[in-house]
């Protein structure tokens, strides 16, 4: 039975005590060191070369994100299991990008954590149930082209030249008055064009408009 050598990093003493206890229950786990802040975590990880580092995000000095980045750079073989209160998709996204083997929420600690450590040790990954949706969305987004397409020669299908202009300028975040001034028309004309083009393209709201414009390459490169 191989022993999994573990380093834990958390700024809360009580949490560390709890983790100590949980890990002690598992015969194949060996807790070799504890860190109370990010710098210490990196130092210990690089010195002791554990198999798994259980890492909190919210720590003073270097936070968990920065520790994760540092360790992926300098000791990529160490499996990182994040143990955090943040079920915030944003943190999750960032850490997935950095490359972690597990993301466990403190609220569901103990059992999930043990399983996450084991899974990581075996090369797998475990993600808290509530974040699976976010993970799947991330995957879908990555499948879609991230780079903006080159500017197409023609306006979008069904739109007049003017409507295409209003589309681009709106996507760039110009106000109605600014667009009206640029095109030398009235604000109400701009609004009419906008309503028409939204309907023609089946877009609901500005966010969708920007996404469409970005995807199809109608955000004028010179402006940006």
């Amino acid at each position: 039975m191989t022993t999994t050598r573990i380093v834990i990093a958390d700024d809360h003493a009580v949490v560390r005590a709890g983790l100590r206890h949980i890990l002690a229950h598992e015969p194949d786990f060996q807790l070799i060191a504890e860190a109370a802040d990010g710098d210490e975590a990196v130092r210990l990880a690089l010195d002791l070369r554990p198999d798994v580092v259980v890492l909190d995000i919210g720590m003073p000095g270097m936070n968990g994100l920065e520790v994760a980045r540092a360790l992926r750079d300098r000791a990529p073989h160490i499996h990182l299991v994040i143990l955090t209160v943040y079920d915030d998709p944003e943190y999750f996204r960032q850490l997935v990008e950095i490359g972690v083997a597990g993301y466990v929420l403190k609220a569901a600690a103990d059992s999930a954590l043990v399983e996450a450590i084991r899974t990581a040790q075996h090369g797998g990954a475990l993600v808290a149930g509530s974040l699976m949706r976010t993970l799947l969305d991330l995957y879908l987004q990555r499948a879609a082209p991230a780079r903006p397409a080159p500017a197409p020669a023609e306006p979008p299908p069904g739109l007049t030249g003017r409507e295409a202009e209003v589309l681009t300028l709106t996507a760039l975040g110009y106000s109605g008055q600014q667009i009206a001034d640029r095109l030398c028309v009235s604000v109400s004309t701009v609004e009419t064009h906008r309503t028409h083009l939204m309907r023609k393209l089946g877009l609901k709201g500005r966010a969708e408009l920007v996404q469409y414009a970005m995807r199809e390459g109608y955000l004028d490169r010179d402006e940006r």
Partner: protein
Amino acid sequence: MRRLRLRTKMILAIGLPILILGIAGTLYARLMLASISEDELDRRMLSIARDLDVDATDAVLTNDLFALYRAFTAHMAADPDVRYVVLLDQQGASRLSTFGPLVPEGLRAANAASPGVPYSFATLETSEGRVRDLAYVLQQGQPGVVRIGLAMRRLEARVGSLTANLFGLTAATLGVGLLVSYVVATVLTRPLARLADVARAIGRGEAPDHRALHDHPDVGVLTIEFDRMTERLREKETERSWLLAKVITAQEDERQRIARELHDNVGQALTSLTMGLARVERTAGSTEVMSLAAGLRQEAARTLDLTRHLARDLRPSTLDDIGLAAALRAYVEEFGRQHDIDARFSAEGFDGARLGTERETALYRIAQEALTNVARHANAGHVSVVLGTRKGLAVLVIEDDGIGFDIARLLNDANAEAKLGLLGMYERAELIGGTLTIESSRDMGTAVFVESPLEPP
């Protein structure tokens, strides 16, 4: 338009005296001329009457009335103004007249010398105009009265012509005077007009060069003091902005502190509580204890959640740790869930630049305020929050499809709460060197546009 008042006053100050003097002078001259001319007229008549006095006595002595008549007509011929000469006897009957046998009615009675008075003058109104009538009592011998009438028309015409000329002269003088005074007044009031323009430009935020005005003998002092005043106002404004920035920073620092306290102390306690209860649950001796522990653990977990929500509302850690886009995305998603509105976020046009803590905080708070307004007032079904970059600017747009509002009216409304939020948004944008624009209408909903420079100020 207002500066015409002083100029108008100056023009009137010159014009009115000219006008008054002109009119007064003309009238005076007219009166004097009329008076002198009338005196002259009377003297002529008296002279004629005295001549006729001698002629009449001779005529009676020689009983040659015809000679007298010839004298009458001679005078008439000599002086074109003489209209008539009539000789009346003591009873007032006409003995001789240039009218012929018929003397106009009323003439006899029109002018009669009182007893003891040698002659009397009267002015008669006739169908031909005014006539000066002399009733002269014959002195030389024969009793009787000579009546001579002189038409005043020519005299009146001359007086009238003089009056007209004088009026014309007055008018010409007035015209020249007004022109000159207009030019002079314009030149003199120009520095004031210039100073007014400068004041207006400064009010718009420009800085026009007006050093030349400082040396002006009249307006110079005013200009210098005016500049001092604007300088003081600018200093005050700078102070105020500085103070406001400090207040906002202090507020953010405090929020951050409280959020951290919540996370560190309260969160830590609740976490350890949760973990401890998990242990109790695991090692429970009986199902009763286990279910009790489970319930308590869930309670603790919920409380922990609440605390974290509170901390995030105060100041999200994603804002500091990851960035504005991440923080906004989370906020918008939460907002949509909480208020059951279709809330979308897009940062596709945002290249992930970090704008610095102050800028990102300001943009985040503006978005928060805008979304709060959407939830409270807009009655919207959809709201989009878009973050992007464009030509050295970060652009944030919060747009809803709600009922819109009247910006101007809200800013003038005494209702402090709603106005405060709006003003706060403007102030925050200004403090980071950006601009905030709001477009709102009943048809299109409301859109808040924030532009912020990417370079640090």
